[in-house]
């Protein structure tokens, strides 16, 4: 053992010295190192001898300490035995007293159990009931009562039992009333205003035609950020202004949870954002189609009024297609009918493409928009299935996000396609009618005029 220790010391000191030598003093040679080691050993030996002497001198002291320690241990053992005995005695006593308590409580014990349960249940109900906005601090008493009953160190007093009864009865009575009271309301803007609030049983809180919501944990009353449809707000206003007569009122029978869902439903802008890139592309394409359709609508309407005027007019006017076709007759007054027909056909063929310009693009947009919607649907579903691969089907919320993206693009595609189809049908009819007039009427009008003179 000692030799191993020595070797360790040697190695350690060697390592230390060599490291030291490397670091600062490179001139130190091996002889010097040896000498240093020798000196170190001598000093160590001296130390060890001194320690041995000290130890030998203290032998009698050690014996004394041992004796003391043994005595202390014996005393502690004795106390422990005594305490254990006392503990057991107390256990028996406790069991006896418990038994006595149970016998004396008898059926009361069951009653306290029920009381505790009722107090706990009612506390939960009170926290969620809007009546708490009017009568505050009811839940605290019930909470304290339920907790102290749970510890069973204290029995409920008759006053407390009667108060539970009173609170339950009051909740019942109040839930059948429509009352007005004033309280602090946090408005949609964030500021706190003290104003009159109408409470409808335990179902709804309204104020100034707006539906309110109570936060169960803090008991504060706040306006719903998103209100239901206008006529419900009007019915709430009517209710507040009524003085006892019967009025209609839109009630949320779930006590606020349906109204609460209103806030979570995304609005129009959020819906469009759900569509993603594909959605935006569809909207841009739709906007282009709409602009083209508007341009066509205006120009075709103008052309049609001019053509109608031309049908009635005697002179050929070159500001409209029919006029330009009729001009052919004036330009070639002396040709035979076959040449005239050829010239007319040529003139009509020159007019047709101008009337039908851009209509093909509108048609294409009306067909492509639902296809792009389908594309968005498929990419959305791919995202959904990737989510399923990663997280499994356990959480429908993860899938729902991707699915609503997918469906949103379909909606956008249809929203663009439906008016485009309608506009195309309208514009196509208009341009077709004008072409029809050109084709079938131009020669007829010329013939009629020729006959007339």
């Amino acid at each position, binding site marked *: 053992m000692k030799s191993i220790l020595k070797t360790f010391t040697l190695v350690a000191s060697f390592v230390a010295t060599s490291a030291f030598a490397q670091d600062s003093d490179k001139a130190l040679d091996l002889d010097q190192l040896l000498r240093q080691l020798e000196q170190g050993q001598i000093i160590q030996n001296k130390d060890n001898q001194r320690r041995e002497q000290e130890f030998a001198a203290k032998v009698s002291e050690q014996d004394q300490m041992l004796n003391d320690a043994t005595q202390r241990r014996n005393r502690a053992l004795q106390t422990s035995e005594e305490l254990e005995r006392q503990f057991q005695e107390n256990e028996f006593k406790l069991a006896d007293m418990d038994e006595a308590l149970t016998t004396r409580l008898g059926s009361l014990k069951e009653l306290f159990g029920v009381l505790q349960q009722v107090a706990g249940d009612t506390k939960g109900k009170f926290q969620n009931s809007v009546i708490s906005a009017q009568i505050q601090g009811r839940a605290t008493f019930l909470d304290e009562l339920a907790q102290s009953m749970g510890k069973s160190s204290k029995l409920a007093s008759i006053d407390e039992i009667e108060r539970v009864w009173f609170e339950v009865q009051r909740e019942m009575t109040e839930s059948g009333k429509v009352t007005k009271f004033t309280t602090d309301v946090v408005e949609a803007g964030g500021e706190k205003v003290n104003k009159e609030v109408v409470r409808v049983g335990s179902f709804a809180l309204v104020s100034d035609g707006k539906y309110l919501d109570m936060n169960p944990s803090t008991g504060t009353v706040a306006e719903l950020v998103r209100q239901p449809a206008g006529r419900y707000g009007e019915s709430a206003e009517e209710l507040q202004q009524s003085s006892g007569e019967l009025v209609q009122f839109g009630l949320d029978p779930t006590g606020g949870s349906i109204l609460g*869902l209103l806030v979570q439903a995304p609005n129009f802008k959020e819906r469009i954002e759900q569509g993603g890139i594909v959605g935006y592309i569809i909207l841009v394409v739709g906007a282009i189609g709409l602009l083209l359709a508007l341009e066509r609508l205006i120009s075709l309407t103008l052309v049609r009024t001019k053509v109608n005027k031309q049908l009635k007019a005697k002179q050929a006017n070159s500001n409209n297609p029919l006029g330009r076709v009729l001009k052919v007759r004036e330009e070639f007054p002396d040709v035979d009918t076959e040449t005239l027909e050829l010239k007319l056909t040529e003139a009509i063929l020159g007019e047709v493409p101008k009337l039908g310009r851009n209509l093909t693009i509108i048609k294409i947009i009306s067909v492509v928009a639902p296809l792009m919607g389908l594309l968005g649907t498929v990419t959305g579903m791919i995202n959904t299935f990737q989510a399923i691969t990663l997280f499994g089907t356990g959480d429908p919320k993860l899938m729902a996000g991707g*699915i*609503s993206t997918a469906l949103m693009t379909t*909606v956008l595609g249809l929203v663009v396609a*439906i008016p485009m189809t309608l506009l195309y049908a309208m514009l196509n009819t208009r341009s*077709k009618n004008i072409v*029809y007039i050109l084709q079938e009427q131009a*020669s*007829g009008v010329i013939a*009629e005029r020729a006959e007339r003179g």
Partner: protein
Amino acid sequence: MFFAEFFEAIRDFTETGGQVLLVIGVLIFVMWMLILERALYFFIWHKQLKQQTIASWNARQDKSSWFAEQIRQAQISRVMLKLNVSVPIIQALVALCPLLGLMGTVTGMIEVFDVMAISGSGNARSMASGVSKATIPTMAGMVGALSGVFASTWLARIGKTEKTHIEDAMAMEH
């Protein structure tokens, strides 16, 4: 009182169907107005115009020249233009009905999935409103399309048969 109940029933129905149902309702209304207008035109004014045109043709001396042929074509086309005024629009509206129904389905499904995103798939009752918004417009779109298909085919067929009738009645002499 009866009308109030009637109105409320319609309002509740449109509300369960959502806004798309309202659009479909307007669309079907416009479509049937156009169809009725066409039917009225066909049974009342068209008959007059047809008789006038045929009479004016029969009154003509010259029924064989190139001019006569062109005038005949022009007169027939004027009658047909008036008869077919809104038929393509009606056909487009018929085609739009199922498309709008599909849009209602998709918006309804979006609502269902929004509810699922908020409250999970456990609550079937809260999903019911979205499901009714998905199914009622589809049904309404189908009803509209089916009712319109017959009317628009009838109108298109009237156009064709009338054209041949008039052409037969206004015979050319050779």
